[in-house]
């Protein structure tokens, strides 16, 4: 965190090498996030470039009281939301439990049915998760990716998305159960 602050401070003084170090540090987490959000490799790289340029242009507004990574991902999240709005992609309300073909998505007790994961090896499970992730509503998918791909804490995600921590926890859970159900159905 201190290293990020120093790099930001040096960048603001005109040291472009410092910003290149920031780009190198965050290029992989950012593109890992954006690739899951766009579902396309090239689009993820284009978005990542735009996010880094946007961050650079508004670096003077960064407040060191906050973590640089959450600030950067906030920009990325807003950028991707703008993209969805422009494309007017169909969205699913996440205020209500998501209905699956066999009823509401969230059981209130653990499902004692046959274990889906037993059927697959871990590598195959990952592949299936990646595929199933594309069909998860963006708002749930985003929180899942921030939590498990980017390894942000629930508090940091709440900060990035300006949501209560409880809401973030609930939506990450919804995403995971939705993935489990989709894998079970496949």
């Amino acid at each position, binding site marked *: 965190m201190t290293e990020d602050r120093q790099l930001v401070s040096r960048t603001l003084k005109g040291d472009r090498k410092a910003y290149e170090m920031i780009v190198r540090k965050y290029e992989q987490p950012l593109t890992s996030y954006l690739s899951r959000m766009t579902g396309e490799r090239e689009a993820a790289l284009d978005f990542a470039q735009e996010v880094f340029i946007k961050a650079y242009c508004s670096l003077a507004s960064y407040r060191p009281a906050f973590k640089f990574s959450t600030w950067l991902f906030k920009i990325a999240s807003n950028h991707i939301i703008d993209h969805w709005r422009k494309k007017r992609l169909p969205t699913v309300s996440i205020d209500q439990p998501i209905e699956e073909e066999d009823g509401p998505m969230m*059981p209130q007790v653990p499902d004692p049915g046959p*274990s889906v*994961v037993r059927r697959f090896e871990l590598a195959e499970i990952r592949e299936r998760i990646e595929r199933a992730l594309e069909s998860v509503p963006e708002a749930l998918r985003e929180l899942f990716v921030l939590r498990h791909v980017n390894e942000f804490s629930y508090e940091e995600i709440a900060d990035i998305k300006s949501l209560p921590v409880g809401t973030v926890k609930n939506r990450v859970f919804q995403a995971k159960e939705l993935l489990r159900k989709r894998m079970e159905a496949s």
Partner: protein
Amino acid sequence: MTSCPRPEDLYLYLEGELGPYDARKIEEHADDCPACREALAERRLLHEAFTTLAPFEVPADFARSVMAGLPEPETRRAGWLAPLVAAMASLGIGLLGFYVFTGQRVFGVLASVNRFFGQIIAQVAPLAAKTLKIGNVVLKVAGDIVDMGFAGLLTFSRLLGPEVVILVLGLGALLSVLAFFGAKRFLQGEGS
């Protein structure tokens, strides 16, 4: 046996997000409940997969292409703008204080200094002497304008009394210092 935990608590347990009391409750319950034990094992494997998804492979020249697309930084002007504002404010306060407490015209003193150097240089370089003479005229005109403003302020300050004048000058000096540090931090984006 305690009641079955909520599925969301199973995930929070696996992420280490539950406190030791709640975690222990889930472990004890899973020992006695085959359904929950099964559910926990399944989610444990899923959790392992969730947390080991492959990272995106970034092309080696990505950072370079980002850097090539960056515009010129807009923050550079902040480096001189804040000190300039503070210096101008300090100069104004200093001139006002000098005039109020000594009654001497600052520009008159400056003109005398200028004239002194002018006389020396006049013997060496006539062109430089002419330039200094023009400078003297400019200083005199500027001095008269500023003196008029100060004279008005002096009259006003006499109405207020010396204590109030000192207070105002002190506040002005404080504001100059704040302008220097505050404006610089704000313009460079380092303020909290």
